């Protein structure tokens, strides 16, 4: 099964995403912000990256740009956690190189459907 990293400074969202994906059989990595994500992703390859946009230290848009500059993650699916109202941020994320988005709030079925759409 693919390895998915969840990057979010909210423990609630972090727990919900990780629990749902673990139950579905995915391997899970976790990071609290962009800086920690880069450290984790240098040590271990992820097949899908899920990132929040508003985080301390390094926000999601910067993280996406940093990852796209790395050969390993040049074409890896990157999904941003966003809300329906965040059209401008969705656009900014796409311009930075995000593959798609997960709209908050989400239910487990929806989350897994989105992951399957980019990683099988």
């Amino acid at each position, binding site marked *: 099964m693919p390895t998915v990293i969840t990057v979010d400074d909210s423990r*609630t*969202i972090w727990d919900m995403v990780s*629990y749902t994906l673990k139950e579905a059989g995915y391997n899970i990595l976790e990071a609290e912000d962009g800086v920690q994500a880069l450290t984790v992703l240098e040590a271990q390859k992820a097949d899908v990256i899920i990132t929040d946009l508003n985080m301390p230290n390094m926000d999601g848009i910067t993280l996406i740009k940093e990852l796209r500059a790395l050969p390993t993650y040049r074409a890896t699916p990157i999904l941003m956690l966003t*809300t*329906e109202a965040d059209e401008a941020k969705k656009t900014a994320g796409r311009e930075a190189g995000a593959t798609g988005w997960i709209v*908050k709030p989400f239910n487990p079925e929806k989350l897994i*459907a989105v992951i*399957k*759409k980019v990683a099988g």
Partner: protein
Amino acid sequence: MQDQFKQTYFEECDDRIQEAEDGLSQMLDGEASSDIVDQVFRAIHSIKGGAGAFAFTQIVAFSHEFETVLDDVREGKLIPDRTMCTVFLRANDVVADMLSREQRGEAIPDDLGADILVELQAIAGRSGDSEGAPQDNPISSREDDAPSMDTWDIHFAPHPYVLTTGNEPLYILQALADLGDCEVQADLSGLPDLADIDPETCYTTWRITLKTDHAEADIREVFDFVEDMCDLQMTRVEEPKEVAEPIEIKAKTKQEPTQKIM
């Protein structure tokens, strides 16, 4: 498990409320650095995000208004003064009060924080139309189409660079197959000679016959990540039909001109 998530959420919110209060107190003292404003914004944003997950609609609605004003401060559209910061501190108290009531299982009065909401909207220069506020039901079902079994003829032609964006047409086709009975034909006529193939370029297009009781919006949602990087044609057909429509093939390789992949 949901109860455990909620417990985590309420514990996290205690920290967030305190972070917001600390930041707002500093702003009240005239220390509105971008780091402090960001800290307050993220705290309220995080509370709103979790509230949405648990359908705490009143917290979502109020914190959305609060967050919107804070975003204006963050972007420099508003310069916070003591009056404004006092309103923000009271708004933070309202969020804390709402959280406490949810945690205790108490109903939140409809008018709780209504006066602060008006002040927040006045600061932002808006009337109380809640434009852009999240909808009440966060996990809404689509009701635009009544369930009925339809057959769709779909032509999906991703642009050549689609693979470089992290999207993979094969997985998109698999997601489509999850919606119903799916027959897929690949048109390989765009494939160059083997020596000329760029592994990061998509040369293939697909014709799909999908029999499904899902609404058109659900089908289109499968393609939402690639909608601006593909040509997509969807036609509802009256009767289920065989995928026998001839596709002009100009294959340059010795491969079969079409491959049924699903």
